[in-house]
């Protein structure tokens, strides 16, 4: 059962990584304009080089 000492923290860490990732997308307001973002990907203007 000693393996629990590693596995529980590891599983909590992995969950926390997912949570922080989600909070990051939330804080950077990636859910503000779902319609616009899904359309912007169709725009060809910056296909060859990144937007300055």
């Amino acid at each position, binding site marked *: *059962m000693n393996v*629990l000492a590693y596995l*529980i923290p590891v*599983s*909590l860490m992995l*969950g*926390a990584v*997912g*949570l*922080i990732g*989600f*909070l*990051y997308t*939330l*804080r*950077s*307001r990636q*859910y*503000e*304009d*779902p*319609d*616009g973002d899904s*359309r*912007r*990907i*169709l*725009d060809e*203007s910056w296909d060859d080089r990144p937007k300055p």
Partner: protein
Amino acid sequence: MTAVPDPRPMACPGCAAAPADMPVAVAQPDDVLLSLPEIHCHNCIRDAEAALMARPDVASARVNLTLKRAYVTPVGDVPADALVTTLAEAGVLAHPLDPTALQSRATEAAGRALLMRLAVAGFAAMNVMLLSVAVWSGATDATRDMFHWISAAIALPAVAFCGQPFFAGAWRALSARRLSMDVPIALAILLALGTSLWETALSGHHAYFDAAITLCFFLLAGRYLEFRTRAAARSAAEELTALEVPRATRIVGGVPLDVPVAELSVGDVILVRVGGRIPVDGRVREGAAELDRSMLTGETIPVPAAVGSVVAAGETVVSGPLTIEATAVGRDTALHRLADLVAVAEAGRARYTPLADRAAALYAPGVHILAALAWAGWMLWTGDMRVALNIAAAVLIITCPCALGLAVPAVTTAASGALFRRGVLIKSATALERLAEVDTVLFDKTGTLTEGVPQVLNWEAVPKDARQVALALARGSVHPLSVAISAQGGDAAQVDGIREVPGYGTEGLWRGVRVRLGRSGWAGPEDAGDASLCTWVDMGVGQVSRIRFADNLRPGVRDTVEALRAAGLDVEMMSGDRAAAVAATAQAAGIDRAHAGCLPADKVARIEALQAQGRRVLMVGDGLNDTGALAAADVSLSPASALDAARVASDMVLLGTQFDALPEVLRCAGAARRRITENFRIATIYNVIAVPLAVAGLATPLIAALAMSASSITVSLNAMRGIWR
């Protein structure tokens, strides 16, 4: 709710870990906000942003397609009108918005806070549930205690953060000395955590940490669905204010000066250019023009205004500049009285009690009494506080309105999604419930049943040379009738020296002869004989031709009206237009009861009269003059072509140009309501099975978790089952 200017409103470890300084479309205090009602694709976004960014005085511009808005960060002071002109040149229709009148930032912050709580609750619930599964599958002694303590370490802070909406709601309800759905929720969560901590400290067998946090998760999911469905519905009064012209041109000592409308006062002299909206109520001092009053009154024909005419805020000047002396500004204008009408009417609608609240009123007291009885019974039977509290906590957790909290939002969200694919946008959370009860449908005429845009009727009957001259003259004007003529296309004659005579028409020289296109008396005979919508072409040699116009019915209106009748609904029409025009439209649409010449207050009064007879009224309208009626009706619908203010005042927006979907929407609302009742029944059945177990002391945390999750999932799945047959 007040706006939260702080970009980091939450204090939690996740926020500290995540950067918040991304370039995003959110209003900064000095941003210029523009409404772009017609954008719909990536090309529109690119065109609008490129056009705005091309201006040297724009630092950044970002279009938000979901809100159909552009956020422009200017360098220095840029008038919104200049940006609107820039966009118009790029082919994008834009209206300036007054950012101070919009509270969307507060709404956005609330939505993000709710989503954040949902995420934290989901994370915590997953981990605690994982530990609980280990306990249920046979962990004993020290291992079980360790799992319980780890669960407590996760669940306690998570509940403290995620449960805040419920605790706050329960506190508000208790302070007001009433019971809401939040009271049993908060009590169940707190009691479950309390008894579980106690049990864990005594290394007991049962802990309800998983139940407490899963409860939070399911309930927050319901809350978030509800919030999302309602987020689109912004306050009608807010948007009406934002739509008002924010700037005006005041003439001081003969010099025009751009000033904010808020600074205008009675007696000021104001210049309004062609295409501009009049900012104040007033009297014309100089100039002659024609005014489009359709948004205020529903009249199709532009009204001439000359020196001395009385004009009202909200009217649009379609020809010739006007100089106006203000007689009423700000809150005293007719436009503002319309906004007040909306506010009053909305207060009336607030009387509707949603199904969920009616269920809560029955449910909450019952749950508390049951839990208290279970506690008292076990206390008397065993005399053991620990056992009695555990049983009471189990009863509260099992009866917790988890499924009830999901029953309504899940159905509303599923139905809203289904309707959205059919071109109907549901903005209010309770609109579907109210729609299911409707038995009377009231239509506005101009712009709702009709297209609101005049069409030429007798183009082929007009002589060829008159047509060519009319085309040449019409192309120089923005008057609605001229636009209709231009839309006919064809070869235009070579007409020189075209000039617009405000309030009358357009004239020019064709083959050396003066030709005119305009109103009767100026271009045609003095008395036109009847009051139908028409204009005249004067060829200058005694030859005059009449061009007739009609405001066409939208396609499919007649079928829609018949379908509504067949569904057993009463159909009526109300319009501010003249009786003759109203009667003609009513006949074409197959509506036998029509009211003409209605003022905005008359429309509200008609609806209130119907409601007093016990009718449930659906109002369909599009103008500023309909906003009061839209807000007063039990439920309201406006076409997408309607003014923003009308769209905001109504519960539903029709995205297409046809009303075909309306009978189906009503059927769908009925189905959604039945589904909600079904969900209540399912939740009750689960309780009827699980509650005796809990009261008998047989409910382990495993049974509680199963009953709770199973009922929540059944309710959600039932909601998602196709609403359309």
